[in-house]
């Protein structure tokens, strides 16, 4: 039995750096992942044991105006985290990491210790994960390794915000085993950054890009952008895309701003009403991104993800394939034994929950999941990817008649170009061929192998199209 990592930190003197354990080389051979089809492979049955872990590090300097995540705003009272990772550590962070380690220790590996597969991906998300001192990140990673094992070359990602790290701090993270960085840039305009309530300015953005690109041993990094911000013009968006392409990240996430209830933006703005763009302006920004990034050699592999061939975020692929994964920390959602579970979003309740987990008064239940729910998950997740829905494996899992109904539902949208049907060679079928295929009905003669939403028009209407499919699966 592996020793729990918990005692490790509880006895740590607060200021001293922990010993850095030797680790596998952080550099990955991405080239092996490059194939002629740089797409997300089809979803797998969810019965595989989890090989991914999400770790929520909720700390932020302050809350961005659009954000409704479970975060802890450290505010100005916090000892300013020195970019070098030294200086006083905020007790709120160390306390939280203790809690996190307790959760890791109290979580049973699935299926059990000996048969469990080692983790292939770990994702530190936030919050602003980069506010957590690298040594604490290392401790958490160690705990995960101790509890679940880490594979030979795992993908270990961390979200970092401009202004929260310098080259040394990044090196320290790399040394701890992190090998992928997701940089939260969001925009390349001072005004927009300010309007969003970001804790950094444009100068920090450029510095951060500089540090990340200059970092030896970091080949895989992603940049986040947000479109449809208040007062964002088409020209600004073009500029942001240009700067992004120039920075040459291997992966780009483009999020369309959501106005959530209870956020500052939620109070200030109404979706579709000035200064927010109308739906059609916002659709236009989405299309521009799709065009510009494709031109620059990025593949639009999921509604809001673009990557260079071979540089998909493996961790995200886990989600899209409906595979199980662990999650740790405030408000985080895990998917284990076919059960999705979201942890409490408030610190106090989360702490109580961890306590219950340790006492054994709470345990991850296991159940045979409802087929309809499962089918909806598969459809929802796969239709958001460029790979699309694998009709054959779907048919195997959920039956021919349901598959046929789905195809019939989507048929009109094949003609209007929102949906694409492909054969095994991923060649698109014409609406006429698809029609014939459907009438044929027999499985053997069928050419249709995949169904996907078109880029960008189908993606833009994904909610409509997926909810249509939901109506078929669960009328």
């Amino acid at each position, binding site marked *: 039995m592996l020793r729990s990592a918990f005692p490790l930190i509880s006895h740590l003197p607060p200021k001293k750096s922990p010993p850095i354990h030797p680790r596998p080389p952080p550099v990955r051979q991405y080239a092996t992942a490059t194939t002629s089809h740089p797409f997300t492979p089809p979803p797998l049955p969810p019965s595989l044991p989890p090989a991914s872990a999400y770790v929520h590090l909720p700390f932020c300097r302050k809350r961005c105006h659009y954000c409704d995540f479970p975060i802890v705003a450290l505010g100005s009272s916090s000892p300013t985290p020195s970019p070098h990772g030294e200086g006083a550590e905020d007790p709120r962070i160390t306390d939280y990491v203790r809690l996190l380690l307790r959760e890791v220790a109290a979580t049973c590996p699935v299926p059990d210790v000996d048969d469990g597969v080692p983790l292939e991906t770990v994702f530190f998300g936030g919050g602003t994960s980069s506010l957590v001192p690298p040594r604490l990140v290392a401790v958490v990673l160690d705990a995960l390794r101790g509890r679940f094992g880490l594979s030979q070359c795992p993908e270990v990602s961390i979200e970092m915000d401009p202004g929260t790290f310098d080259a040394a701090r990044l090196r320290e993270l790399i040394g701890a085993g992190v090998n992928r960085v997701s940089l939260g840039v969001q925009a390349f305009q001072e005004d927009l950054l300010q309007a969003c309530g970001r804790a950094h300015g444009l100068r920090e953005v450029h510095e951060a890009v500089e540090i990340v690109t200059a970092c030896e041993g970091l080949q895989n990094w992603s940049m986040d952008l947000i479109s449809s911000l208040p007062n964002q013009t088409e020209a600004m968006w073009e500029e942001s895309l240009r700067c992004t392409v120039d920075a040459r990240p291997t992966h780009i996430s483009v999020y*369309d701003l959501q106005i959530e209830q209870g956020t500052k933006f939620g109070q200030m703005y109404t979706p579709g009403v000035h200064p927010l763009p109308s739906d059609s302006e916002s659709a236009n920004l989405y299309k521009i991104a799709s065009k510009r990034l494709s031109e620059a050699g990025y593949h639009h592999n999921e509604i809001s993800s673009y990557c260079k061939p071979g540089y998909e975020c493996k961790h995200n692929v886990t989600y899209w394939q409906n595979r199980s994964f662990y999650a740790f920390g405030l408000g985080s959602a895990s998917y284990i034994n076919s059960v999705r579970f979201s942890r409490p979003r408030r610190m106090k309740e989360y702490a109580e929950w961890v306590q219950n987990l340790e006492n054994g008064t709470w345990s991850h239940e296991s159940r045979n999941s409802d087929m309809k729910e499962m089918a909806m998950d598969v459809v*929802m997740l796969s239709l958001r990817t460029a790979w699309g829905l694998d009709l054959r494996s779907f048919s195997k899992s959920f039956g021919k008649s349901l598959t046929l109904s789905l195809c019939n539902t989507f048929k*009109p949208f094949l003609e209007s170009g929102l949906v694409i049907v492909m054969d095994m060679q991923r060649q698109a079928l014409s609406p006429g061929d698809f029609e014939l295929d459907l009438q044929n009905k027999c499985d053997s003669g069928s050419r249709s192998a995949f169904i996907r939403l078109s880029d960008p028009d189908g993606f833009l209407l994904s909610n409509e199209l997926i909810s249509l499919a939901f109506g078929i699966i669960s009328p």
Partner: protein
Amino acid sequence: MAGAAALRRSARRIVRPLATATALSRTLQQPERLFSSQASPEHGPRGAMSGSELGLYTPELIRNFSIIAHVDHGKSTLADRLLELTGTIQKGHGQPQYLDKLQVERERGITVKAQTATMFYWHTSASHGPDTPRYLLNLIDTPGHVDFSYEVSRSLAACQGALLVVDAAQGVQAQTIANFYLAFESNLSIVPVINKIDQPTADPDNVKDQLKRLFDIDPSEALLTSAKTGKGLEQVLPAVIERIPSPPGKCDSPVRMLLLDSYFDEYKGVICHVAVVDGALHKGDKIASAATGRTYEVQDVGIMHPELTPTGVLYTGQVGYVISGMRSTKEARIGDTLHQAKITVEPLPGFKPAKHMVFSGLYPADGSDFEALSHAIEKLTCNDASVSVTKETSTALGMGFRKLNLGSFCSKVQVENPAALASNPGKRVVGCWEPTVIATIIIPSEYVGPVIMLCSERRGEQIEYTFIDAQRALLKYRLPLKEIIVDFYNELKGITSGYATFDYEDSEYQQSDLVKMDILLNGQPVDAMATIVHNQKAQRIGRELVEKLKKIIDRQMFEITIQAAIGSKVIARETLSAMRKNVLAKCYGGDITRKKKLLEKQKEGKKRMKRVGSVDIPQEAFHELLKSSGSK
């Protein structure tokens, strides 16, 4: 053609909210009622009354009367007082408006269904010299609301007289007039009661003047009462006994009775209310229905006192209930004559057949509920001759019921012009006929202008314009039925600050220049949206409708053209451009539950829509359309 058939049977029609279906079957929960000792000390053990006692009440000692009035003038409250006064119910026990038993009645404080109660009352009358005989009085409380006036006419059929209640402050209102004439035409003796004299604004003298002017009622006949304070109530029952004749039937003839009402009770089965016109009805008797020829054995018979009280017998002139093993209220058609089995009798004249005046299309929101809806409607309506139900299927609404609505109105047009609408759908029909009503409107005189304007906008033709007193005017209009179905009453109330009162009775068909207007979505006609409009208004209504629809229908994944057309001629057109984008939330941190919830919500939203072709139409679109096409 079922619709046309129904229309030919056309009759005044009552729409009751579906909720009352269950309420109806609950009308007879029977809390054991104590017989008040002061009122009927000699009436056997409580809860029952012997037939021999009832036999004492020969027709001369019986009075059957209704209480009629404009809505809210205090009929039900007056009924409470009379029931208390006779000890039939105990004072302060039970809820006010005791006879309002239906859920809707209790919720809305209005009477919907007529209710009968039997009371006993000692009275010294001139004809009986010094004795104080006990009288049997049947009181029928009726609804005042215009939509339920069918209940009034059938109640009157069992009566020889009526208390015409008028609010001392509001004076004569539209239903006062309508109900007065119903009673007058039935040759009933009318006892005017000016009620609510306790109100500070009460002006009984003015009301007396109105009664004189409008109905030629002698001011000295009017009783002044307050059902609230009890003032003047002691005059009411003596007036009933002295001014209203006793029922005229023949005691020694075979039994013959009028079926007044029927409903289904879960425990007892079908319960019929009857007025025994001739002869006597005993438990165990064999009776037959003149309408169906079926025979039944009387299992239980008694009076409503006010709860069902078995007596084993009902004599000539009495009103009570009969339970005879009918399986469904379908067998008990209201207005039917029940009589001694194995003989033929002259059916009773019944009463003015119900006229369909309110129309409704009923569709289950979820198609799978069709059976349940069907059942509920059957329960609700089958005992009600005033309701005609036609099953229909609409491409938009699915299977449902069209309870004699505009659709059947089209059928009527088709019947009379077989070659017209049916074979050339939409071609202008020469010689269209539409049903009309005669509307009576009473308003304070300052509102005459706007009301005349409203009526002429609704294609009304003025028939009468008089002043009933210094402040109040009476207007009579012939209006196309179609123009008053939707929103007329609301608008009337609106422009008169709520002061207008309104009543209508149906009148003949009139020839008019009507066309059928189709609404097409992406070229496909939506049958539930088709309307009949007056030709001159077609253009305007068409334009308004398509504009309205454009606002109501959400953008969809393709462009939608919305057209209004008469035949093949498009008279209005709007285009709703395709949706460009729908929210693109990311699946944050693997937490797909939120996203999924959003999509499920979206799915449910779609489910609530009705789909025509590929277009999803929100339910409200249908309501909105009915509104605008009906009122313009």
